């Protein structure tokens, strides 16, 4: 109350006359500068775990991208000289060499690259398919019966069985693995998005759009999906570690990618055979695998928290 101490009589009389009233300015008082995305990203990066995970992931991804161009090591050519076989880690071979003298450091980064490409592809297709089908499922009640039949059939049979089946029928290749993983994962994604969309469907702003005769396809693409973007990102981030894990599993049981291709799964599988004698051959690829998996889980989960407006403090 500083004003109280001020002597009112000392104020000039002129101040006690009508001020100009600017009608346009009045509306300005109500604006807020809240922005959903700005707040989400701010909340997201507040967590120290996220800062670490994101920094390391960015470095790792950048490194796997540029590694093939800066190295002259060939991860595929075996060495004919037995003196190069099963070497322990050293300055020349940071992760050592495998049973035929290939540099594991090089193989790990090539493998990470393959696994990341594969898992990102799976995430994009699986979540993409899930969103589209989930949206249709949520908006057209008629689809309920058939979709639930498919859902029950697919989820009641253990996914391993048809993962193995598809991988057997088709030639082992990256495309095969992508198809196999997407084929097992899309239905759960669709179901998950259906529930989300059902919750949005009856919201007032969608009813307003229906009253304005906005076609359903545009209600889905302009009203509903933009509201779910943060969920979609989160979901994709969580699908990535799962797909990497599945690739490792498939390679491990021998129906994954061709054994001569560098992938984390193949590396772990090959390291396993020599594990008792040369444990590092399996430990290093596994460490990288764990790191990627854990980082994506942290990123996905923290993003889910950050995207909830309740946490925007």
């Amino acid at each position, binding site marked *: *109350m500083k*004003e*109280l101490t*001020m002597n*009112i*009589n000392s*104020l000039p*009389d*002129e*101040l*006690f*006359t*009508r*001020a100009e*009233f600017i*009608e*346009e*300015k*009045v*509306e*300005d*008082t*109500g*604006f*807020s*500068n*809240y*922005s*959903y995305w700005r*707040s989400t990203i*701010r909340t997201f990066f507040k967590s120290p775990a996220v800062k670490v995970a994101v920094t390391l992931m960015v470095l790792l991804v950048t490194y796997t991208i540029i590694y093939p161009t800066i190295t002259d090591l060939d991860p595929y050519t075996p060495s004919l000289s037995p003196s190069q076989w099963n070497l322990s880690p050293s300055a020349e071979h940071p992760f050592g060499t495998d049973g035929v003298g290939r540099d594991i450091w090089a193989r790990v980064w090539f493998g990470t690259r393959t696994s990341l490409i594969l898992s990102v592809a799976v995430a994009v297709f699986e979540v993409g398919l899930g969103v589209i089908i989930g949206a249709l499922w949520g908006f057209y009640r008629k689809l309920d019966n058939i979709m639930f039949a498919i859902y029950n059939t697919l989820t009641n049979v253990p996914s391993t069985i048809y993962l193995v089946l598809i991988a057997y029928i088709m030639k082992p290749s990256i495309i095969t693995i992508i198809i196999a993983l997407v084929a097992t994962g899309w239905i759960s994604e669709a179901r998950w998005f259906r529930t989300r969309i059902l919750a949005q469907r009856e*919201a*007032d*702003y969608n*009813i*307003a*759009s*229906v*009253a*304005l*005769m*906005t*076609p359903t396809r545009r209600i889905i693409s*302009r*009203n509903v999906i*933009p*509201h779910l*973007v943060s969920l979609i990102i989160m979901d994709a981030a969580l699908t990535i570690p799962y797909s990497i894990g599945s690739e490792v599993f498939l390679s491990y049981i021998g129906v994954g990618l061709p054994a001569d291709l560098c992938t984390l799964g193949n590396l772990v599988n090959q390291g396993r055979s020599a594990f008792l004698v040369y444990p590092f051959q399996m430990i290093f690829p596994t460490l990288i695998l764990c790191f990627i998996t854990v980082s994506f889980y942290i990123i996905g989960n923290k993003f889910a928290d950050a995207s909830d407006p309740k946490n*925007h*403090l």
Partner: protein
Amino acid sequence: MSGKIFEAKDVIIKFNLRGQILTAVRGASIDLYEGETLAIVGESGCGKSVFTKSFIGMLDKNGRVESGSIKMNGTELSGYKTEEEWLTVRGKKIAMVFQDPMTSLNPVKTVGEQIREVISWHFGTDKEQAKKEAIELLRQVGIHDPEKRYGQYPHQFSGGMRQRVVIATAIACRPEILICDEPTTALDVTVQAQILDLIKNLQKDLNMSVIYITHDLGVVANVADRVAVMYAGQIVEYGLANEIFKDAKHPYTKALLLSLPQLGIKGQDLHSIKGSPPNLYKEIKGDAFAPRNPDAMKIDYMYEPPFFKVSDTHYAKTWLLSEKAAEYRRELETSTDDEKAEPAAAMDFSNAKKLVSVKNLTVNFKLGREEFSAVKDVSFDIHEGETFSLVGESGSGKTTVGRAILKMCHSSAGEIFFDGEQVNRKLSRDHLRRFRKSAQMIFQDPMASLNERAKVEYIISEGLYNFHMFSGENERRDIVANAMRSVGLLPEYVTRFPHEFSGGQRQRIGIARTLVVEPKFIVADEPISALDVSIRAQVINLLNKLKRENAFTYLFIAHDLSVVRFISDRIAVMYKGRIVELAETEELFAHPLHPYTKALLAAAPVPDPDIERHKKLVVYDPQQHDYSQDKPFWAEVVPGHFIWGNENELEVYRKNY
């Protein structure tokens, strides 16, 4: 009124919110005397809830009391840090009742247990004794058959009953002060009146002081001994209820009272306050209300005014009261001394074309395996150019009727005609298109009715795209800009997202969206009930202006009779899915016949303490109708005045008319 038991002085409360500092309370002070009722009135976001929450240490984690003193019976509370310290006050000396009873009660525990726990926990009473006391409390808050109710769960109680239980838990420890934070906002009007009555009686019996926090001036008039008006984190005026209602000095209080729809004169614009309350992230210079006050003085923009004394009990924080402003004050008084305008005569629409005709509409919903009728055998006509209001409490089916007319909801039986053609059947694409274009909707909640992820430009253009109403981008932009202007917003704002606007502005964007498709008929579903008092008048004026300019026909849905009086030509009162009475507005207010209409009218709070104090509570009990033999039907008592009743009742109604 005797001793002062509570005092808050120059309290400043700040929040860290999204990296910014929000000053929610900017130096507010109140005194509370023994046995009195103090009402703190203000719009949402003015800091009234936060202010009172600081009295019992219940601020959210990111908020803090920056400075100021909070004293109870001479003990300083503002230095309390730990929960233990606060627990000596919270519940025991100061108890709080919140707006939504469902969130204050634990859904998986019986209500009796919840009250018993409070008693045992605070006083260490043994179980049997505490149970007895809990039952006694339930009886005290007016719950019938408390022994049986003791063992029931919150979901078995109605909203009003739940609020009674919450009040019982609040008074369990015999607090000296009861803070009621919008205790009746979530309740129906008739229930609201009962709860207010209950709190009043309890206050007398237990000799408590009560602080009401509310935005509803009608409630204030009913309960308050003293009133404090809060704006932008400050108390701007306080005084006895009569002084505030009859002799308000602060321009904000004055404008607030003038803008009430209850006081409007039909055919005239309501007095409206422009703009919205200020954003408290920004530093406020001078009088916070100045930018919205057309009569502000230059000094209002420069220095914050001190409190000026009006009488011993009445103070106002405005430069207008200073001696220096005496001349300007006189100037204002002479200019506002305009003659009271006569209300426009009621218009006769009976010869106008019937635009909407509802015949024996019934809507059934399935709830699990059971089927219930949300709307039962409802019939009415709306004439072209008319504003027809449907009034009823929550669950009366009024929204369902509106949605059924717009084909947003199925109809189980009956017919709905729009412009002479039946619409509650499968329409050809072309017909549906014509219908959708001419019948539109305005929603209650401006927060939920706009697509948050689209720019205002797209939101307003949505109908234009769908009905191909423009020939080029330039034309579309012009239409959008015109629509923005006609709802009082600058056309430049179209590039912003909805969340950048305040509630009232968003509601106007929603109106602009329906406006561009040039409809004939608009269903306005409680368009003002989610808005602040100072914003309501803007929206009502806008709706009336649009009606005059575009010859709209409105179906106006509301829960409060007093609000619709100002805008409606005819009113239908709904109860449990049935229209019980239908008449022209003034006729209905002059001769309410159905007991439910009477109860509704009596329950509606009037912003005048003299009337409110002496009001008698009318409770409607549907059991009073004996329809066992003599079946009720829809009858016209006098021309244009319809009512639902049986032969016996109609005879009484006619006699008492």
